[in-house]
């Protein structure tokens, strides 16, 4: 992606962001609240138009071919994008049908995903009754219906308890191992450290550092990404969530 910029009401949120994400890798966009992470993901997922700049996503130009981009990505937003009133299975079948799987295939795929994401037991309960971790898993399962080559995860573990968090991390690792490119945003340093091949630190709408976790640590001559982050974002570091 090149020179992505976006302003809301005259206030710049992203200022000319350039990034390259290697296929098959896990890429973490790390930054405090308000850094512009969600805006960047929404632009890349075609939900918001950039004021300037563009990106090539799986060979599709974001500006020229948004429909092509939509076919090759999947987005799991910050808030679980599932239907509360429907059951987990109904959600999966509905989304699979909307991805134009024939009815029978949609049912079969829903069954596979419910098993894969450990939701078998709750498959026919309404999502309203699910815990935060179960919703996240269902959300991930929905994102994986068509096995898209690129998956966006916007703050995948915000608000989850430690056990659910570990579980979600496990699924993300499995997805990456199966060849899916994952671009995730997070405000948690440990999450970026453990999951990502490459981390980019977004601060005030700019990428202020980029590299593997090891490179970033070497750069700050420290074992801890906390120090890297403090060095990069200075006084705003108090906006960061403490490492849990």
């Amino acid at each position, binding site marked *: 992606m090149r020179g992505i910029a976006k302003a809301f009401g005259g206030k710049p949120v992203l200022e000319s962001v350039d990034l390259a994400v290697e296929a098959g890798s896990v890429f973490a966009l790390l930054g405090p609240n308000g850094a512009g992470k969600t805006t960047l993901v929404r632009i890349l997922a075609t939900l918001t138009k950039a004021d300037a700049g563009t990106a090539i996503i799986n060979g599709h130009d974001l500006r020229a071919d948004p*429909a092509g981009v939509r076919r090759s990505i999947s987005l799991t937003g910050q808030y679980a*994008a599932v*239907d*509360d009133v429907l059951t987990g299975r109904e959600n999966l079948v*509905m989304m699979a049908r*909307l*991805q134009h799987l024939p009815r029978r295939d949609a049912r079969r795929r829903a069954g596979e995903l419910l098993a894969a994401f450990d939701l078998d037991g709750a498959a026919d309960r309404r999502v309203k009754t699910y815990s935060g971790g179960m919703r996240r898993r269902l959300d991930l399962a929905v994102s994986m219906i068509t096995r898209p080559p690129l998956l966006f995860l916007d703050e995948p573990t915000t608000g989850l308890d430690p056990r659910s968090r570990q579980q979600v991390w496990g699924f993300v690792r499995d997805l990456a191992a199966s060849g899916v490119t994952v671009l995730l945003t997070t405000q948690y340093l440990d999450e970026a450290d453990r999951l990502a091949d490459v981390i980019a630190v977004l601060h005030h709408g700019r990428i202020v550092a980029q590299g593997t976790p090891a490179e970033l640590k070497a750069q700050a001559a420290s074992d801890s990404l906390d120090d890297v982050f403090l060095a990069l974002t200075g006084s705003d570091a108090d906006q960061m969530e403490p490492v849990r």
Partner: protein
Amino acid sequence: MSTAYALTDYNVMIGRCVRRSLRDPEAFFTALMLPIILMLLFVYVFGGAMSAAGGQYVNYVVPGLIVLCAGFGAGTTAVAVATDMSSGIVDRFRSMPISGSSVLAGHIAASLARNLLATALVIGVALGIGWRPSGGPLAWVAAIAMIVLFILAISWLAAAAGLLVSGPEAANSLTFVIMFLPYLSTAFVPAATMTRALRPIAANQPFTPVIETMRGLWMGHTETGAPVGHDAILAVAYCGAILLASVTAASFTFRHRVAR
């Protein structure tokens, strides 16, 4: 995108909204009880005092109650759309390769189904308590076409409103506005019986020609004495205008609204 895919999208979205309607038993029950309760209330409580048409009040009030219930149904639709917009699910739909209009179409179809059910209840109860329309089969077909057009227009209006307001609570308050308007029409009492200041409003607001068209078709004469055709043209024009404006506003807002 092929037509078959678009049809699937519409199908799935309609199924989703119908399911959502059926899974909210309290709201569904209210929506079905309302027409019955209102019918009994108007005919047996107020009806004695308001034998305005010079006969059974039930013979006067049926079109008004249909419109009143459609107003209530529109409120439900506005809330459903606003609820969708305030949850993450619309973002998901919009990031998928599906036709954007199918999301709204699902709500409109469910709204149409709910409202027609309520209308059928109004008509059924009315016939049960002595409503005797004089119109023939053609008049019935025309009256039902009028109802469908009106419900379609008010459903799209509700969908547009649901998209424009800040959230489900705000959408809910719209219900009261829409339910209040029929009282300021010829729905329940003739315009001539109102205060001088209200008369022109009641005689000319959009609900009135819709109500008078149904009344004229079913009972053989309108309350105002104008020919049915006159009211029908006005009603179709009003509904068409509302439909056009609402579809445009809703489609534009749906495409451009940046959620959150």
